[in-house]
């Protein structure tokens, strides 16, 4: 997401992406919504049928009630026929009960559908995250994705179950009363409908307007969310630099925008109800006036007017409900648009066609880089023309100044990014021909940023590997030298790591190394894995790693040159190319870039 609001400069001339702020396509969103709801269609249909039945029952209700009124009215003089009163009452009670039960079943089904749909969407987002190329995350903020998982899906879940059922029953009522009206008298019917149509027009004008603000509101909320996430996560720097005011200023700006959209969308959607009830009264009046004229011309009886009074109510009430349901539905649409957008984001290449598979236990461990060329953006190549042949069991160290492309090498090796040209082969097989899952399976990778999740130490160490005993875990912990530390924690292996734990970065790093140890694989990648471990601990880790590297082809990226002195091959990278290679002694004798790099650590 681009953001050029920080600068006093008017516009960023770069080609950075900007958010399209035009209202999006409601029809399209609803079409898609229906498409996504496919699985639930049978249930929805049942629910809708129930809704229809329950509404038809409620059209019959008033009719029967007016029968009851007639009987009582007739009985004013002659005495009331209680037999009939009782039978109608029993009939009506049954009717009401059945209608209520159907209604509830309908609600239950729709609640189920809405929640399962929301659940589905959340799952899809969660799965989607793992199918997107890493590139996607370079350009999109986490806060934005988070907002889709919670806010947007939530909106969909809540509004959908409220809107669909009532929409259908309202439409049934609406159509039912139109039929009843025309069956009774067409002039009166047209009068009632024309009067109500004015309501329709208003409704749709408002609907269109408020929809725009609803979409805008979700967009602005997403932006605000992104900012909040950033500031909360970087709390310590914001504090230390007195950045509070600045971030507050930006927050205010974003907050103001959310407020504007909020106010407008709320106001507009809140106006529907009063307008509709006004239209109800207006059509009631129109029916009375036209009816009176007709009565005076002796074209209809008084009873018809009374009947129409009920019909007009039955006709306009659902309009209000429809309006309400539409408001809900449009928030559903606005939110689902954003969710679908994410779900439909371009995924990594499908690998179903890849049949070839290198088995972990059969890999010899040969890796060849063959004229590899790569850049994160097309306009900037990071790796120029990289060639290298790594023999089984070798320990390869990659060194070089920051930005030389060391980590990028790992990204390519792991197939996190696709190379532009050239090839990387494992045991002679191009990684293009292997699935990502297969490639990942062959590597143990320990990264510089220590990622651990909220959970017990045991779960963190064994991670997704099954059948790992506590002994094995303890062994791994012992090898990296944190067994005492773990044992000293309140619950040992069951100690739950949390987000802002007081466990130091180094300890976390050691835990991630232990995690890597548990996963057994023929190749090893250490991407500056020891940079946040102190040097004393590092020595321990180093020994453990040496054990781990035995028989494995390993790649080690390190700043501390002491850690790689014993590597079989040291690749010295600069600006995306290898400028020197050899072992430590050779490179020192050469007295080139490496030697300079190495000596610089002891200079005063």
């Amino acid at each position, binding site marked *: 997401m681009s953001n050029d609001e920080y600068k006093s400069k008017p516009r960023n001339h770069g080609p950075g992406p900007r958010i399209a702020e035009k209202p999006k396509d409601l029809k399209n969103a609803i079409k898609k919504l229906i498409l996504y709801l496919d699985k639930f269609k049978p249930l929805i249909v049942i629910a809708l049928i129930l809704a229809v039945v329950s509404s038809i029952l409620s059209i019959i209700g008033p009719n029967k009630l007016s029968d009851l009124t007639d009987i009582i009215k007739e009985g004013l003089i002659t005495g009331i026929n209680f037999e009939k009163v009782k039978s109608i009452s029993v009939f009506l009670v049954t009717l009401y009960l059945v209608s209520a039960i159907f209604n509830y079943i309908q*609600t239950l089904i729709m609640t189920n559908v809405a929640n399962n749909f929301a659940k589905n969407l959340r799952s899809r987002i969660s799965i989607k995250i793992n199918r997107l190329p890493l590139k996607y995350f370079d350009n999109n903020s986490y806060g934005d994705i988070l907002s889709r998982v919670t806010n947007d899906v939530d909106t969909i879940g809540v509004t959908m179950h409220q809107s669909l059922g009532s929409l259908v029953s309202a439409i049934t009522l609406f159509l039912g009363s139109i039929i009843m009206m025309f069956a009774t008298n067409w002039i009166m019917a047209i009068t009632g409908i024309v009067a109500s149509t004015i309501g329709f027009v208003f409704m749709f004008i408002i609907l269109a307007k408020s929809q725009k603000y609803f979409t805008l509101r979700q967009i602005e909320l997403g932006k605000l969310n992104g900012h909040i996430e950033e500031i909360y996560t970087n709390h310590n720097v914001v504090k230390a630099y007195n950045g509070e005011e600045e971030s507050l200023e930006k927050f205010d700006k974003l907050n103001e925008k959310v407020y504007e959209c909020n*106010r407008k969308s709320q106001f507009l959607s809140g106006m529907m109800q*009063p307008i509709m009830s006004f239209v109800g009264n207006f059509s009631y009046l129109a029916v009375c006036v036209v009816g009176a004229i007709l009565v005076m011309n002796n074209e209809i009886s008084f009873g018809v007017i009374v009947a129409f009074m009920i019909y007009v109510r039955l006709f306009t009430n659902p309009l209000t409900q429809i309006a309400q349901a539409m408001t809900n539905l449009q928030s559903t649409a606005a939110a689902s648009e954003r969710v679908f957008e994410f779900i439909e984001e371009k995924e990594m290449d499908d690998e179903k066609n890849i049949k070839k598979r290198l088995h972990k236990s059969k890999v010899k461990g040969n890796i060849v880089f063959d004229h590899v060329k790569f850049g994160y953006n097309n306009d900037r190549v990071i790796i120029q023309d990289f060639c290298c042949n790594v023999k089984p069991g070798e320990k390869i160290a990659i060194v070089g100044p920051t930005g030389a492309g060391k980590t990028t090498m790992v990204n390519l090796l792991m197939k996190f990014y696709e190379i532009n040209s050239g090839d990387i082969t494992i045991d002679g097989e191009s990684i293009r021909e292997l699935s990502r899952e297969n490639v990942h399976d062959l590597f143990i990778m320990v990264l510089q940023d220590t990622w651990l999740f909220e959970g017990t130490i045991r779960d963190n160490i064994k991670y997704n590997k099954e059948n790992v005993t506590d002994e094995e875990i303890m062994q791994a912990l012992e090898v990296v030298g944190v067994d005492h530390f773990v044992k000293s924690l309140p619950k040992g292996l069951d100690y739950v790591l949390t987000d802002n734990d007081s466990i130091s970065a180094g300890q976390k790093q050691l835990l991630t190394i232990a995690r890597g140890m548990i996963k057994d694989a023929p190749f090893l990648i250490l991407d500056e894995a020891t940079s946040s471990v102190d040097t004393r*601990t590092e020595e321990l880790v180093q020994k453990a790693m040496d054990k781990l590297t035995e028989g494995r082809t390993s790649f080690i990226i390190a700043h501390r040159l*002491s850690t790689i002195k014993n590597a079989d091959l040291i690749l010295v990278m600069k600006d995306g190319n290898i400028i020197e290679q050899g072992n430590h002694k050779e490179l020192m004798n050469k007295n080139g870039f490496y030697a300079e790099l*190495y000596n610089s650590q002891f200079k005063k």
Partner: protein
Amino acid sequence: MFKLLKKFNRKDVLIILICVVLISFQVWLDLKLPDYMSKITTLLQQSDTGINSILEQGGYMLLCAGGSLLSAIVVGYLASLLSSTFSKNIRKKIFEKVQSFSMEEIKKFTTSSLITRTTNDITNVEMLISMGLQLLIKAPITAVWAIFKILNKSWQWSAITGVAVLILLTMVVMLMIVVIPKFKIVQKLIDNINGLTRENLLGIRVIRAFNAEKYQENKFEEGNIKLTKTQLFNQSMMGIMQPVMYLIMNCITLAIYFVGAYLINAAGFPDKISIFSDMVVFTSYAMQVIMSFLMLAMIFIMYPRASVSADRINEVIETFSTINDGDVEEENYIKGEVEFRNVSFRYPDSEEYVLKDISFVAREGETVAFIGSTGSGKSTLINLVPRFYDATEGEVLVDGVNVKDYKLNILHNKLGYVPQKAVMFNGSVKYNVSYGDNGKEKASLDKIKEAVRVAQAKDFVEKMSNTYDSNIARGGTNVSGGQKQRLAIARAIAKDPEIYIFDDSFSALDYKTDYILRNELKKYTKNATCLIVAQRIGTIINADKIIVLDHGNCVGIGTHKELLKKCSIYKEIAYSQLSKEELENE
């Protein structure tokens, strides 16, 4: 909830009062409508009425309806104004509050929970206010007014209405008792979902490297199912409300007619007709009563969730930072001095000390380095200076004044802090380097360029497509770890602080860059004091004072040479990094 509502200011109260008046007016008009309707009905029954008298009554009726519409629109406008202003203000309040928090409070709430509280929870409360406020005012007014109109008609009918209302209320109360606790759980489960997604996003490379996508997805699914189940239960329970409402509404009419039939039958002839017409009017007003309770019930549907959200918001607002501003503002004649006097520290919820009885002084222009094994308390020590945490015992002094006595921004202005994990903001390089407010003018472009140069970031910054205006993505995902670290260092340099604090800030740099950077920095900041936490001996070899920490204890203070002689732990660290000859060459 009510605590939150107390945040309404006088203007808000005025708006609410206006709303009350307008809504009363609206209710009055709405209840007047049936009168005109019945008048029209009577007119129609009289065969000699001209069209004009109908139109006259109709005109009044339209006037009523129009007036009602107008006031409803005004009320709608005011309510939307009120609720969105309210949410805007509360959101700001929380944001400001969170900014004032120390690390301790952030840790307590967790970042992801704070994010949901600032966004999702506020939306929940806002919804209640925007819809609820109108209903809350309108429902009681309508109920009272309508009840007033039907009183004295017949005790039997009133009893029926009363029973119906009682049934409704019982149902609502029971639902609330069952459902409200569950709503609290829902919010927690949403937090959980949020947290899991965050986790997945942050660990995306590791997850992929471990082929653990399925594992993460299963974990997510577990939380997802829990959330869905709880919500399903809640909504299914709440779903009972509407059908029962309608059932009661329908039955009440029927019951009134049914009882009415007996009443009419029992009455004498002259009363029969009046009872009959009363009956019809009574049903319409009874309906109004029930309807107003229905409106109240709608609030009850929204209330639980909003109330839970309100509690969560309150929790944030009512938490006070354990670290408060002092009042020292004036500059001292001492500059660039940091002193620890018998400082001990432990986390509030922990027994064990992380730091024990640390004392040292760093004077102007000195470089003091901290070294020790992982978990020895180096970072914690350094975090006490900018007051991310406060010392449990002892005193930390900057320029001779206890850090607790400073106004925080004055204290922070003196410091140039570079964290272990370099932090980037979404914005240009320029923005990132000149970030914050150091009490002076914003750094000029020249200043920024100079800082970037000293931090050894010039090369790559000037290679970027827009150089200093290039955009850094949120979280700095489009620059490498080492680049991030150098920009973070440049940020500290651009601030011109008296005291630099480097919390292991060179770890992502290669030796050469590290070396050049430190040399340049030394040249650039002759008078500044430096506190450096480091892993590499090379980084601190020239420090004026090296403090060796072990399990929170200070086990040695001195220069590199002194320590090599007298401090065994230091020797151990040194030998693990440098060979004997290298050390002896020194």
